[in-house]
């Protein structure tokens, strides 16, 4: 009998306030969820470069050379990728967008990074996005993410 699937979500340090956050999804049973591993193994200069790009997205910036989604493709509109170059090789962290506090903070958006891949062709590898779509609908995945973002008492209540 295969072991029960488990998922774990952790925020990138210090990136959990405001309207956006970024974190990694990993699984003890599935090494293909390798985004966090790659991120942790980045060399110092690349680490800073990638973190600066995460910061820019978190702050609400737009820069397709650093990150982008596929908003025009209905099927993949929740998918997202951060980009950088390392040793002349295009690198990608793939993930999906999720609103973890739908009731009390529906605007808050988290980018759940999952996979790392090296990109060798211009065309998007939609098989990765298909895998992301499966994950983002998985109740265990959603529970793992939402655990990190408990619904908060609304400010409306606080004001009253």
């Amino acid at each position: 009998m295969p072991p029960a699937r488990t998922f774990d979500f952790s925020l990138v340090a210090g990136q959990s306030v405001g309207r956006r956050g970024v974190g990694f999804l990993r699984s003890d049973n599935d090494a293909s969820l390798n985004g966090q591993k790659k991120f942790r193994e980045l060399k110092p200069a690349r680490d800073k470069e990638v973190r600066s790009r995460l910061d820019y997205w978190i702050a609400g910036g737009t820069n397709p050379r650093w990150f982008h989604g596929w908003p025009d493709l209905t099927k993949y509109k929740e998918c997202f990728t951060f980009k950088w170059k390392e040793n002349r090789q295009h690198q990608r962290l793939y993930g999906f967008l999720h609103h973890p506090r739908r009731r009390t903070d529906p605007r808050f958006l988290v980018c759940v990074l999952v996979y790392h891949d090296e990109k060798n062709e211009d065309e998007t590898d939609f098989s990765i996005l298909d895998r992301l779509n499966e994950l983002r609908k998985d109740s265990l995945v959603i529970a793992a993410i939402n655990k990190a973002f408990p619904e908060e008492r609304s400010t409306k209540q606080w004001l009253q």
Partner: protein
Amino acid sequence: MATVTKHWTSRSAEDFVYRISADFVLQVEKKMEEEGMNQKELAGKLHVSAGRISQVLRNPGNLTLKKIVEYSRVLGMKVSIVAYDDGDPQNLNGPINAEIFNLCWKRAGSPKDFFALDNFTSDVRPLGPIYQIYFNGYQDRSNTEADWMAISCDPNKALSLSTSAEKITRAIQKGL
């Protein structure tokens, strides 16, 4: 429960320098795009090799203030160093992006001196935190100095802030 830890730029001064330098480089790249200028042309203006430009743009952590000024000037821009208090003394959130300061300044009518601020600031007085939170929306819950500054730099928003403040005052008085 989400654990709020310090931002990565708290690890070292070098990390903080990298982040603000990266913000600067992004401004340079955007200006280059606007001007239709490529790295080779920028290199020519700065009397350095195109490789050096590429290196700086890819890894801006070693930029000096002098270089920052030189890059800005050849692109027809100026630079200011802004020290600010955003209500985040522990640096949990990292630096405010330089573009935000620039946008605020433009929205405020690009004031050139303190006199130009007079007409503008007379209508904008900091309100209590309750109003700031209300204005920012309950979903934001941000009432930091930076957010306040972003709001107060926009006369239209400042006007609606006053309206919101009145509404909320009335709501509180009525016990709503």
